[in-house]
């Protein structure tokens, strides 16, 4: 839209020629000038220039739609509004599943299950609509070479044994997952830019980038001057193209992120604007409130990136076999946590009963919310949500074994009341 040539904005031929002499050929160039500059460049009077501005604006302004029209459009085709993850409690909290038309980020320490989750979602996207899928192809951009086709088939065969009952069907499914291996930021960006045509050609219904963080962190060392700005630039550009694709084709876009250690540099960082302490990090041993250790682990790529993604799911370790899934940022869901394990058929959520027992002593249950004990109304800053890594989980199991107290998951509820 910005690069629209003025010719197509219905300006007269001679005006366009005159403007091109000053190197003003697109709507963007035109709108960036002030009124006086425009008068000089076009040689028109003040009122004429205002009329021209309106004409050019009309050529690139977006179309108006009321919220009612948007709702109608959605209700006409409800199944296409999200991709069900088949993790029922998660789907319920997210009002259906991974939302179509926006960016969803999955962050976790290594080995927690990001790639497994992505592979599982690829299988789900290729399923027919009647089974909750999107009946389309998948574009998988892999920067870490972590994608395993054998695991893909294993998940598909174990999760839907009734549907994938023949090798034929499995192979057919694998044919609709397009894998691209990109190893540098530049090539990732180029690939994202060229996705539009591929999506139309291959009838793609899901785009996964696993992972954004690995290429960015390889190439941009934020300690060097200027790199922080360049990194933000790259991320913002990528994010805006992906958002455009997600909205234009109403498909979900899934990105994975890594973790980093945020060093709390003393009281400065804990000032009003920023501070999330989660009991998960407090349980690491510092008992005095207000005193913090050297740092805590949180999602990488910084604050700006947290603004760009619409939904953020965090996977972290709880104890060794069980992991935890947090909905840290979502426009429709409150902050929630679920336990899961990784099995042959992908991710399986732990039953409610199991963690009802775990949360029993810590969560205050209000009478009409007995079945939603996993919902917590408070949240934390998704950009600074501390994440448990493997070592912490290991340390805690040893720690908890020694002391007869409640588990490491002390709820923030009790500390607030």
């Amino acid at each position, binding site marked *: 839209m*910005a690069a629209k040539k003025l010719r197509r904005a219905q300006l007269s031929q001679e005006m366009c020629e005159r403007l091109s002499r000053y190197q003003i050929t697109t709507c963007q160039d035109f709108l960036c000038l002030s009124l006086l500059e425009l008068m000089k460049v076009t040689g028109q009077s003040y009122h004429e220039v205002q009329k021209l501005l309106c004409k050019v604006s*009309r050529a690139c302004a977006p179309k108006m739609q009321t919220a009612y029209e948007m709702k109608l459009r959605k209700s006409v085709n409800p199944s296409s509004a999200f991709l069900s993850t088949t993790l029922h409690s998660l789907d319920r909290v997210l009002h259906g599943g991974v939302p179509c038309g*926006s960016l969803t980020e999955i962050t976790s320490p290594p080995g927690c299950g990001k790639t497994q989750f992505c592979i599982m979602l690829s299988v789900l996207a290729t399923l027919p609509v009647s089974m909750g899928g999107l009946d389309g192809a998948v574009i998988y951009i892999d920067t870490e070479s972590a994608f395993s086709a054998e695991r893909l088939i294993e998940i598909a065969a174990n999760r839907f044994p009734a549907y994938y009952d023949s090798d034929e069907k499995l192979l057919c499914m694998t044919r609709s997952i397009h894998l691209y291996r990109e190893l540098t930021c530049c090539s990732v960006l180029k690939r994202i830019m060229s996705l539009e045509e591929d999506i139309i050609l291959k009838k793609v219904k899901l785009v996964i980038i696993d992972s954004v963080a690995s290429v960015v962190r390889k190439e941009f060392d934020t300690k060097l001057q200027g790199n922080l700005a360049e990194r933000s630039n790259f991320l913002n550009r990528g994010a805006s193209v992906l958002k455009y694709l997600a*909205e234009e084709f109403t498909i979900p876009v899934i990105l994975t992120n890594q973790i980093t250690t945020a060093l709390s*540099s003393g009281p400065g960082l804990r000032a009003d604007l920023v501070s999330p302490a989660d009991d998960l990090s407090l349980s690491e041993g510092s008992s005095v409130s207000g005193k913090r250790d050297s740092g805590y682990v949180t999602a990488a790529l910084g604050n700006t990136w947290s603004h760009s993604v619409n939904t953020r799911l965090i996977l972290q370790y709880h104890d060794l076999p069980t992991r935890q899934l947090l909905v840290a940022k979502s426009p429709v869901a409150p902050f929630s946590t679920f336990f899961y394990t990784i099995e042959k058929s992908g991710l399986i959520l732990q039953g409610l009963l199991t963690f009802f027992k775990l949360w029993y002593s810590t969560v205050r249950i209000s009478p009409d919310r007995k079945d939603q004990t996993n919902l917590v109304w408070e949240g934390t800053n998704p950009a600074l949500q501390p994440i448990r890594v493997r070592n912490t989980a290991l340390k805690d199991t040893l720690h908890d074994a020694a002391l007869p107290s409640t588990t490491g998951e002390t709820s*923030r509820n009790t500390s607030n009341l």
Partner: protein
Amino acid sequence: MQREVGTLPLAPALRARLAAAGFQTAQELLDTGPCGLSKEIGISREEALEALQVVRQECHGDTARAAGGSGATRKCTALELLEEEQTQGFIITFCSALDNILGGGVQLTKITEICGAPGVGKTQLCMQLAVDVQIPECFGGVAGEAVFIDTEGSFMVDRVVDIAAACVQHCHLIAEAQPEEDHGKALETFSVENILSHIYCFRCRDYTELLAQVYLLPEFLAEHSKVRLVVIDGIAFPFRHDFEDLALRTRLLNGLAQQLIITANEHRAAVVLTNQMTTRIGQSQSTLVPALGESWGHAATVRLIFHWDNTQRLATLYKSPSQKESTIAYEITVQFHHCWLHVLMETRCHSIFCRF
């Protein structure tokens, strides 16, 4: 009439010719007449006539202004302004602590900026305001419509449906508790469908579209005269990438701010902008500050910063011409922003609100 030729809004080439021919004041031009002008400068009679009409319009406008009539600049006494301010509407947010620190709610004719970390609730509040602006006057609202300009793609219709349903339900509760005549009539037209059809959404993908939309806003508001709220969700996002020339960015932002102030004043609408936070690296520590730089801080009249304190969400009034700086706690419930009062912790699940 003594206005200099160089200040008239004519085409620059024409002005240059007039200056070269020796014309200095507008009065001289008017005295010469179109034929004389065309002969002296060498332009056609039609062009000369057009130019003279522009000059006459300008001068007429000038004299009208000098005589104290209505023109582009208004002047009034402080008393008139006081009366205006007292009758001015506020858009209530349904979170009474937030309304209190704002002095009644989001004020019309002013620009309010909401800054905050990601996920803290800026878009939620904007969606809530888009619904609250439509509350009928008998319930304390301004009965207006809303324009929602979304640059980040975070506008979720389902959420707006939830908020609208809760608002309608709340108004029904009030009507039952304190029945008055107009309530019944107002409630007939105040339904979820109606609310949704009066929220006009624009999705701007980059700063050019945003600039274009803001240029077209006066025209749109003239057609939809009931609009009382313009929300730009994410003024920072389109300006934070692809901009090597920071001076250009500052200029565009200032121009945008000016236009929004003019629009807010002329149409008696409230303008709400949301801004991101960015990390500023200091000598020994880094802090989160609102994005877009220091100069942008001057654009908004009222600035609210949403932030976290442990797991509690807080809102701080950072800049306001009439209220003092204060902080309140709030939370986001299924229905909408809700103020934290100890009593309410128990009844949080039910829709009883502290305000009424």
